[in-house]
């Protein structure tokens, strides 16, 4: 069946794999993603800070949820996306997918770091300490190590394609093992703790309190797109540094 739309879509997808085309695409759309992301997050943060009433149990510290939860979701989603890109890159040897997978890692690590730090800061007035070894934070810490492992492996191998393949394979192994790790930590926690209830915003939320969260989720996703495009563009330029189109690009920019 002939579908002109589908044909155009497939052709666009293939053209995007060409390094100079991707460079133009990323340079053009990254600013939009950043700006839209910033605006959406601004709306969300304004709502989180000034519109939502303080929680009767946790007071104002509850507002940290609007940063902690979207970052936690991003840390997981980016890891899955990174493994997805890596799998496509490994199976079909598509350079762009390798680049995208490796560009996901630092952004995912950043969101994981935010999740851990805000979780610790949120927990201090709740638990009295900066850290508790509960399943969610422990799994998040392990996730940070997985991200750093992918980044470290990619940086350690000189040949960029081999490095991306090795690090991509590590990401896939990580994604496969992550549920096992999470389940093991939950089991471990039930064995040893079972005491204080972890107050991490599981209290049922009113609809009006959900809106800033939705804005933040959308905003962080848009920001991620902008960051991903820029990082991929940088990696693309580095890999293609000797090529003709890069030389023409910098001459045209003079």
């Amino acid at each position: 069946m002939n579908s002109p739309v589908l044909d155009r879509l497939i052709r666009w997808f293939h053209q995007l794999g060409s390094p100079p085309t991707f460079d133009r695409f990323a340079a053009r759309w990254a600013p939009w993603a950043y700006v839209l992301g910033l605006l959406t997050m601004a709306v969300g943060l304004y709502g989180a800070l000034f519109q939502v009433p303080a929680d009767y149990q946790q007071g104002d510290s509850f507002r940290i949820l609007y940063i902690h939860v979207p970052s936690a979701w991003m840390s997981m989603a980016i890891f899955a996306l990174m493994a997805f890109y890596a799998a496509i890159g490994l199976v079909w040897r598509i350079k762009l997918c390798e680049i995208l997978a490796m560009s996901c890692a630092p952004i995912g690590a950043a969101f994981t770091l935010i999740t851990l730090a805000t979780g610790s800061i949120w927990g201090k007035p709740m638990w009295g300490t900066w850290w508790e070894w509960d399943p969610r934070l422990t799994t998040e810490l392990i996730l940070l190590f997985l991200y750093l492992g992918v980044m470290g492996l990619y940086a350690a191998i000189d040949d960029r394609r081999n490095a991306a393949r090795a690090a991509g394979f590590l990401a896939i192994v990580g994604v496969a093992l992550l549920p096992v790790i999470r389940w093991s930590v939950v089991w471990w926690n039930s064995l040893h703790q079972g005491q204080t209830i972890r107050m991490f915003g599981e209290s049922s939320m009113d609809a009006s309190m959900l809106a800033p969260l939705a804005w933040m989720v959308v905003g962080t996703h848009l920001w991620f797109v902008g960051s991903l495009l820029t990082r991929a563009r940088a990696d693309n330029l580095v890999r293609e540094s000797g090529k003709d189109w890069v030389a023409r690009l910098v001459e045209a920019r003079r």
Partner: protein
Amino acid sequence: MSYREYVIAAYAVFVVVLLWDFAAPRLQVRAALRAARLRVSRIATREPPAELRR
């Protein structure tokens, strides 16, 4: 208990990390373009290779 310092600290972490996430790739792109520019100028000022003599 005043939660204000904690909220400020958490939001500050968010802003700082995202600022780094914004700045780092921009610097990488700029460094890559500068390296390419230097390479182009190096090649342009290169002596043309001598002809092979048979």
